């Protein structure tokens, strides 16, 4: 792998915030100031438990949600800046999304052919009807489906096949960047591997950049070059995936990794597990200071008062934790 300096930044996320107003008094701070870069051609894995804000982060990066504060620079261009309809359209073409639920994310009243070609039509990428059809057939083949499948409706397909249709739809407009929000969580293990292999192959062939959102840490490790761990709207740690799994710094990352059951009974019997107590606090009223302190085995006095700084502890390994302050 190339060293990170040589890599070009595709996305720069700077202090991004997304707050939802629940009532006059309550605000849900789903994403509360996260900063990281995504390099061209890499897969950035974003993990965390339910309610940590990882999906909101993905959607805000794509401008499916307007950001409350902060910036997302895509090729040096602020995504959330004021844009004309035309600018927005060309931007949308470069960023696509694959959704978690392959049952809910395909329109049941459209044929597969029309679902895949929707982007082609919107962006006027086909010169004629034949061209359009050829493009769709090529896409179907790329994701391992047959030409004939184009005339069918989504309900005729299994979950894994539907997810392939979702991938073909995202690819139709030749994007540079794809946000995949838990693309395999709804699939069976043997089918998950099929979809992950397709995504990896396409990345190589088309120099795609992925933001891969998931809660399955072993799959994230497998597919990602770098991984970010979120907890209650904040980034806890970002590192290359090898580094993160070999030497997790944040106590939350350590607990998260140690909680994943490994499919090896011998290992499971002997290994020491860090079990963190309690549940994730409500993001509507998060704890003061460090948000993990209420469940952290290493919590100190300072953690309750001061929010830890986001710092580069070693090269390319970022962490927000008071344990690593000088």
């Amino acid at each position, binding site marked *: 792998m190339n060293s990170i300096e040589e890599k070009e930044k595709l996305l720069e996320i700077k202090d991004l915030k997304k707050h939802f107003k629940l009532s006059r008094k309550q605000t849900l701070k789903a994403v509360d100031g996260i900063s990281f870069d995504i390099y061209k051609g890499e897969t950035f894995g974003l993990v965390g438990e339910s309610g940590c804000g990882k999906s909101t982060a993905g959607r805000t990066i794509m401008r499916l949600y307007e950001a409350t504060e902060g910036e997302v620079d895509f090729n040096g261009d602020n995504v959330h800046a004021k844009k004309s309809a035309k600018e927005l359209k060309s931007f949308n073409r470069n960023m696509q999304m694959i959704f978690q639920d392959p049952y809910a994310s395909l329109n049941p009243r459209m044929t597969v052919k029309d679902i895949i070609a929707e982007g082609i039509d919107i962006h006027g990428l086909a010169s004629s009807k034949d061209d359009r059809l050829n493009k769709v057939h090529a896409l179907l083949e790329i994701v391992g489906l047959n030409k004939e499948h184009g005339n069918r409706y989504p309900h005729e397909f299994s979950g894994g096949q539907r997810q392939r249709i979702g991938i073909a739809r995202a690819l139709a407009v030749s994007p540079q960047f794809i946000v995949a929000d838990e693309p395999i969580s709804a699939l*069976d293990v043997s*089918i998950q*591997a099929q979809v*992950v*292999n397709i995504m990896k192959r396409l990345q190589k062939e088309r120099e795609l950049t992925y933001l891969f959102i998931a809660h399955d840490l072993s799959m994230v490790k*497998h597919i990602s070059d770098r991984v970010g761990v979120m907890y209650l709207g904040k980034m806890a740690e970002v590192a290359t995936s090898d580094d993160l799994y070999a030497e997790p710094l944040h106590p939350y990352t350590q607990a*998260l990794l140690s909680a994943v059951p490994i499919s*090896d*009974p011998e290992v499971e019997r002997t290994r020491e597990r860090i079990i963190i107590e309690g549940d*994730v606090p409500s993001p509507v009223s998060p704890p003061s200071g460090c948000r993990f302190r209420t469940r952290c085995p290493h919590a100190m006095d300072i953690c309750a008062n001061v929010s830890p700084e986001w710092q580069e502890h070693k090269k390319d390994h970022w962490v927000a934790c008071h344990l690593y302050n000088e």
Partner: protein
Amino acid sequence: MSKLLEVKDLSIAFDTYGGEVQAVRGVTFDLDEKETLAIVGESGSGKSVTAQSLMRLVPMPPGKFAGGSIVFNEEDLVEKSDKQMEGIRGKDISMIFQDPMTSLNPTMPIGKQISEGLIKHQNMSKKAAHNRGIELLKLVGIPNPERRIDQYPHEYSGGMRQRAMIAIALACNPKILIADEPTTALDVTIQAQILDLMRDVQEETGTAIILITHDLGVVANAANRVAVMYGGKIVETGNVNEIFYNPKHPYTWGLLSSMPKIDGDDEELLAIPGSPPDLADPPKGCPFAARCPYAMKVCENHMPEYTHLSETQQTACWLLDERAPDVEAPESAMVGGTKVHE
């Protein structure tokens, strides 16, 4: 050790508009006292229907027993009337479900849901049942049980609801606890807590557990024995070491290969091509034949018999027939690298 439960040749079918779906097709297994048996398989493999049928929770119709027996306490549960089943459900055999939000009654305080069984099966007074409820909540690690017992499910978090459901299931000291994907809806850190809790509870109460799951990590963590289901049949069964270190069925190999290893490197995952069979029109032979890289002619038309590889391990695969070519498990299915199993 005496057998607590013996399931023989159990078949369950459903009448649907698309024809008869044979969800479970001749499943045989047994359960010892105090052990944890994991049933693994993909969606549609019949694992949940098998589990539900043990409690006679499969709605009939459209479901029906197409054969076989479930022997518990020397009596066949298939023959029991609904009324008789009521005396067994929740008392001798109880169940925890995947989704704690939809399986708890939202209009009833948690305490009342625990006492229900105690009052019915053990003729406890309301007061005694209430006190036992507090004890049970304490056992499953719910803080402040005296206050929590009067709360409703929506006031509990996901992990706590699952704990409460375990408390309800354990109320009458059941001999068998059936856990249908008990941690699938939970986050990993909460999953670790619940698996720990189930182990502690088993040690304390000695209940046998049937664990239904698709997660091999959970199996490795919690099970003593494993049954691998595919297409409505058990294709391989063995103790946990045999299944992970010495699997013989190509489907088990496929399952183990398609799991990414957390300490492995990033070579391509070995996916199982294709998708599971349609049980409205089940294949005549081995259900896995269509996806099996080693499939032979015989596999398509004849279901293989079980080969007994050890006292505990049985595998239904034609590759184990003496006339079949020698096939080694692929390297990707080797758990823990070169570990040799004695």
